[in-house]
């Protein structure tokens, strides 16, 4: 079932939680709403669910599930599955009763027989690998198990769309990783439309078909994860999607200077700020004719596929972060306190009006 939002906005009192938003989610898509706290992503999800109502302004918005206009349909009749951040399991009911709840509250005419309910609940519990815990109570389960129960409960009523509010936010890293993979697989198998909220960019990029990046109640960009990372539309998206190094200075005659550091750039005169990802910083023992950026190594973290190196210099307001291949790390014999020169492989710039990105590539 596709989801279409037209001109949806929301005020809480006098604060605007959502600026008018338009969004199309295709059938079978897994879409992540990504943003910092206060960006309106949870509000948007709750409006889709019907747990919150959108503003009734002069130009009222619409919410469509497929062809069905659900703008004024009560949450219980929208046929959604909602997974809450802290699970919201019924604490006085067993796991079985939790999952069966949606089936047992159906109107008598549509309600399956108790044998059918039993069969369906156990099928769902099997799917989330919890059939052996059917008699337990929520408080006796781990966080990851509770989240799976909450998912099974939401799926029991065969919803048209599945909505998840920070589904893995309260879990530790390892469990989170497992559940993510598991949700991705489940989504592929059952083929429903899902929307989930997260503030974790890695989670959003790994899990989603498309990511909706939000800030301050506004949609900043909607794109597939790789497009989003390669071609961020504005500075907010660029900075939110990963670590960023800043190089501020003024350009004169094609040279950007900042203290005793300089870099040849093909830009007009004036104040300038360039942004670099950690992997776009190359380190060498010598400066070049076009690039003189002296730095001191202040911290080294050799964990993972690459070595993360923190760099400081008196011309830098904030330390830089660079990722270096282990081979290069050994070749340079890097240690703390060592003096090196940074060479941008590539840099990005966004002007203040949040216009599309300008990018430049340099020979390293």
């Amino acid at each position, binding site marked *: 079932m596709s989801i279409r939002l037209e001109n949806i906005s929301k005020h809480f009192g006098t604060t605007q939680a959502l600026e008018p938003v338009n969004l199309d989610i295709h059938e079978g898509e897994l879409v992540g709403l990504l943003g910092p706290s206060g960006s309106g992503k949870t509000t948007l999800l709750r409006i889709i669910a019907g747990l919150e109502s959108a503003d009734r302004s002069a130009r009222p918005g619409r919410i469509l599930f497929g062809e069905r206009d659900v703008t004024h349909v009560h949450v*219980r009749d929208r046929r959604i599955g909602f997974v809450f951040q802290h699970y919201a399991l019924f604490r006085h009911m067993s796991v079985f009763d939790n999952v069966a709840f949606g089936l047992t509250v159906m109107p008598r005419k549509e309600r399956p027989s108790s044998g059918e309910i039993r069969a369906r609940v156990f099928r769902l519990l099997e799917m989330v690998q919890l059939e052996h815990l059917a008699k337990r109570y929520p408080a006796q389960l781990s966080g990851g198990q509770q989240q799976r129960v909450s998912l099974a409960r939401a799926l029991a009523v065969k919803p048209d769309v599945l909505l998840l509010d920070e589904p893995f936010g309260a879990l530790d890293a390892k469990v989170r990783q497992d559940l993510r993979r598991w949700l991705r697989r489940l989504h592929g198998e059952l083929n429903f439309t899902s929307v989930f909220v997260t503030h974790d960019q890695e989670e959003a990029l790994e899990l989603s078909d498309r990511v909706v990046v939000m800030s301050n109640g506004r949609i900043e960009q909607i794109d597939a994860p790789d497009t989003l990372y390669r071609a961020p539309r504005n500075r907010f998206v660029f900075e939110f999607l990963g670590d960023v190094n800043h190089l501020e200075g003024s350009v004169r005659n094609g040279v950007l200077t900042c203290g005793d550091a300089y870099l040849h750039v093909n830009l007009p005169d004036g104040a300038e700020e360039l942004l670099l990802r950690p992997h776009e910083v190359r380190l060498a023992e010598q400066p070049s004719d076009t690039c003189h950026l002296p730095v001191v190594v202040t911290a080294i973290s050799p964990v993972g596929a690459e070595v993360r190196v923190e760099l400081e210099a008196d011309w830098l307001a904030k330390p830089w972060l660079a990722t270096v291949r282990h081979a290069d790390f050994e070749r340079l014999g890097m240690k703390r306190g060592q003096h090196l020169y940074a060479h941008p492989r590539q840099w990005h710039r966004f002007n203040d009006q949040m216009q599309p990105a300008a990018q430049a590539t340099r020979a390293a």
Partner: protein
Amino acid sequence: MRRIGDAPAVRRLLISAALVLSALFLLLPLVAIFAQAFSQGVMVFWANVSNYFTLHAIALTLGVALMTIPICLVFGVALAWLVTRFSFPGRRLLQTLIDIPFAVSPVVAGLIYLLLYGRNGWIGSWLDGHDIQLMFAWPGILMVTVFVTCPFVARELIPLMQAQGSREEEAAATLGARGWTTFRRVTLPNIRWALLYGVILTNARAVGEFGAVSVVSGAIRGQTNTLPLHLEQLYQDYNAVGAFACAALLALIALLTLAAKASLEWRASRREVLT
């Protein structure tokens, strides 16, 4: 390592002070009540209790308590629901207003009701024209009893419902449950212990209320005399044994209430350990 404030001398002093005070102010009077009630033997005690006026007072007291409880229950749940699940202008004011019956002296409450609903009162004179008498009759006793006891249930529920939040009810709604079903299957089971606790407190207060009831009841023997009022009359009539027999009955009800409360607390704490 000793914890802060855990010096043996201090501890011994506090414990003995607590024990001595409890004995002097709680235990001794309780023992004295029963001692006095039975001072002339069980037969005299029984004669006083089985006296028609006493029996009537017992029936009236228990009857009023039984009617008060459901009223307070519905009022308390509705109020707690309103205050914790909705935000509206005046919500905080309402939360403060709930406490008025606790803050106001019961005698004052009784007087206000008398002024409003008495034969010469604003509402009472109109009711009198329609042959409805509230004051100096059991409806008046019920009204003031409800007034003094109505905060108990709400006060038990509000902090609990605030802490639990509305997530489970939202979850029920997303699963298609209607309002009443959600209340019956999700909300009520979550608040049942607090609810019972509120009922116990309500009952204790309803049975023992003196001040407000004494103003509006008229204390007509065999008609509008509740057990506490009857007790006072007996005492004024120099019937000490009779008065203490009634006191013993009231104390017994209080003890039963306390036992019920303790057993509830014990069960609730055991549930927490379990889950």
